[in-house]
């Protein structure tokens, strides 16, 4: 949208665009993101995201670490969905070494990743409420997330950086009665969606704030390489769990929710629906969990053959990929991460222009970035 600078006749007055630094310390940037906004009154004329405040150089660090050591660092990319990061790293190394993980290990991975997807989307739901100005949903979401974290704590000993999914399988088999506790959590979770709907989704003010705001057309989304719920919000049913199944995802029965217009509302709605689908997947996984070993035989020192590999999964925020080059040693030669948050963030500069300051927060929140993954 072009903003006109109105010249008042006969007066030597001029208007100036205001430059506002949104962040790096700002309550709604979900970390340390800086967006340089040029504004005409309250209307945005240009937006430049500035990233790198959380850069730790994990891809370079990988070159000095053995393959299992890198798992620990992978936890720190998308810290809201550390299981996905573990999984994609393990998948990449396994692909390189041609290790076949037993079915029990595969299903366990699916359970963990899907539970983590729910936890991650719950954080989105809560913080998005705060962005829009409703504080109560946040605490409701965290009540449920707490239960998921308790489940994770039982299996992995950690609540945020799990390091649970290992090369060749998982860290350990499930503790006693864990399945029962997981089932009771799922039963608890189902009626909560109704609660969320009455509290936030059906609220007319919330709908007014999100519908037709920050529309991301499908061609633009594809040309920017957007993936995950943001792309599905723009009515493109692209999901690696269906399109390039890994970890026996092709055996599960679930649907891919898609939005219509690609506005903030659609992106929000897709995530809420995805949580419901994840509940279904976990239920099926608990049902079909086979007996037996959960770990494949993996050599003590991992020395993959010379070669390169690309592994990708559908993380809560989109297509998470690892490009890995091995020179035959016990450390990777080169690692590159395809971080969905970083790539999704880039589209901000397109869809923010012409919006109001209040919408910046709504749009930024609906893109759902994790700065740990953006900057790595």
């Amino acid at each position, binding site marked *: 949208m072009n903003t006109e600078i109105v010249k008042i006749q006969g007066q030597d007055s001029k208007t100036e665009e*205001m430059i*506002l630094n949104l962040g790096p310390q*700002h*309550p*709604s940037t979900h970390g340390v993101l800086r967006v340089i906004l040029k504004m005409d009154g*309250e209307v945005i004329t240009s937006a430049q995201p500035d990233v790198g405040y959380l850069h730790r150089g994990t891809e370079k660090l990988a070159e000095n670490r053995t393959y299992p050591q890198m798992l620990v660092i992978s936890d720190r990319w998308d810290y809201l969905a550390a299981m996905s990061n573990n999984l994609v790293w393990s998948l990449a190394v396994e692909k390189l070494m041609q290790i076949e993980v037993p079915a029990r290990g595969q299903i366990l991975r699916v359970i963990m990743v899907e539970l983590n997807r729910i936890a991650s989307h719950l954080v989105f739901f809560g913080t998005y*409420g*705060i*962005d*829009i*100005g*409703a*504080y*109560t949903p*946040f*605490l*409701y979401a965290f*009540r449920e997330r707490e239960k998921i974290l308790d489940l994770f704590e039982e299996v992995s000993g950690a609540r945020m950086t799990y390091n649970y999914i290992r090369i060749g399988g998982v860290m350990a088999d499930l503790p006693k009665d864990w399945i029962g506790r997981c089932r009771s959590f799922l039963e608890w979770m189902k009626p909560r969606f109704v609660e969320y709907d009455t*509290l*936030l989704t059906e*609220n007319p*003010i*919330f709908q*007014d*704030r999100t519908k037709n705001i920050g529309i991301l057309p499908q061609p633009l989304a594809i040309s920017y390489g957007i993936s995950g719920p943001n792309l599905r919000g723009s009515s493109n049913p692209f999901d690696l769990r269906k399109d390039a199944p890994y970890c026996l995802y092709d055996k599960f029965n679930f649907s891919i929710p898609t939005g219509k217009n690609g506005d903030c509302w659609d992106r929000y709605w897709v995530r809420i629906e995805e949580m419901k689908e994840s509940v279904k997947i976990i239920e099926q996984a608990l049902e079909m969990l086979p007996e037996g070993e959960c770990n494949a035989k993996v050599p003590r020192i991992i020395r993959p053959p010379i070669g390169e590999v690309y592994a990708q999964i559908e993380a809560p925020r989109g297509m998470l990929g690892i490009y890995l080059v091995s020179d035959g040693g016990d450390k990777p030669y080169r690692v590159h991460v395809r971080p969905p948050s970083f790539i999704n963030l880039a589209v901000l500069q397109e869809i923010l222009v012409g919006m*109001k*300051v*209040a*919408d*910046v*927060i709504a749009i930024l929140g609906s893109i759902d970035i994790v700065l740990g993954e953006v900057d790595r």
Partner: protein
Amino acid sequence: MILPVWNESQKRSALILFGIASAGAGISIAIGEIGARFSKIWACLSSFALKNSIPTALLTPLSMIIQCSILIGFISVSVMFMVWWERKVSAHMQNRLGPMFTGGWHGWAQTIADAIKLLLKEDIIPAEANPWVHRLAPIVAFVPAFLCYAALPFGEGLISADLDIGILYIFAISGLSVLGIVMAGWGSGNKYSLLGGLRAAAQSVSYEIPRVLSVVPILMMVGSLKLTSIANVQTGFWQIAGIPVLPKWFIFYPIVGQIAFLIFLISSVAETNRTPFDIAEAESELVAGFHTEYSGMKFSFFFLAEYAYVFLSSGLTTVLFLGGGSGPILPSWSWFLLKSFAVVFLFLWFRWTFPRLRVDRLMEFTWKFLLPWSFVNILITGFILLF
């Protein structure tokens, strides 16, 4: 009907709440009408002054000082209570407990501790700020709130200045507060503050209009701008065949009362800058809006002003729509407080369940929805009065 099954702790808290309520009722009945007691005390004082030949010119300022101190005391105590109450209410709405430690019983002393903390905090004036505007802004924001309380009838005979234009006075004076907010926004030398101040100015000025117009039907029916006479009209009951059905509160007047009440309530929430209309201090957008750069006592003055306005709006709602201090058994002041705090609870409820409106939708809402409907309401009242 399914009766809820209460566990031990719920039973205990219900018992405690019942105890508090009955103790409060007992105490207020024992105290009786404060207004009458105050006039007795005042009569004693003046006769004592006459006997000891103290000039009467001294008495008038003295009475003013006493009234002011009572009001300031009331405002600060009620604000402290409201802050604690809001924290408890919001906590229970959000599955938390809220303050539990300070003072022992359910953290009752939390706001006192907070106030002491704010008093002791360093007072910062940013280098970019205009120091005088920055310093004056909290005072300009708070003083009108305090002035408004002068014309608020707390019950029978409990009003420090029973003005003939009481309602007009309150609207006029409370409109001044926005000056303080604009000063804070402009004088802080911060872009977020500036945006917040501008938003607040636009919002307050727009919502003032439907707020005043929503009261016009009451003024037409009562024929007076005096708050005490408006409250007096609403005493008693509507009767069907001698049985009292509904109190004669203005909110129960068919159609007109409800529309006026809703418009007044909505614009009151907007006037006090609270969610869903808190765009002036929208935390997720503007950090803290106009009071981003304030700390310590100056910040607490804004805080005090906000809560003082919340109670003022609730008190006004009570006087205009809920019959003021009218009610059985309990003295009028305790009815007034009960009803006012019930309305305060509504404010809290809104705040903790609604998201925030966007600034342009907010303006659309007042100009395209509230304003036309308040005109329609005036029209309907005119028809009712004609026929």
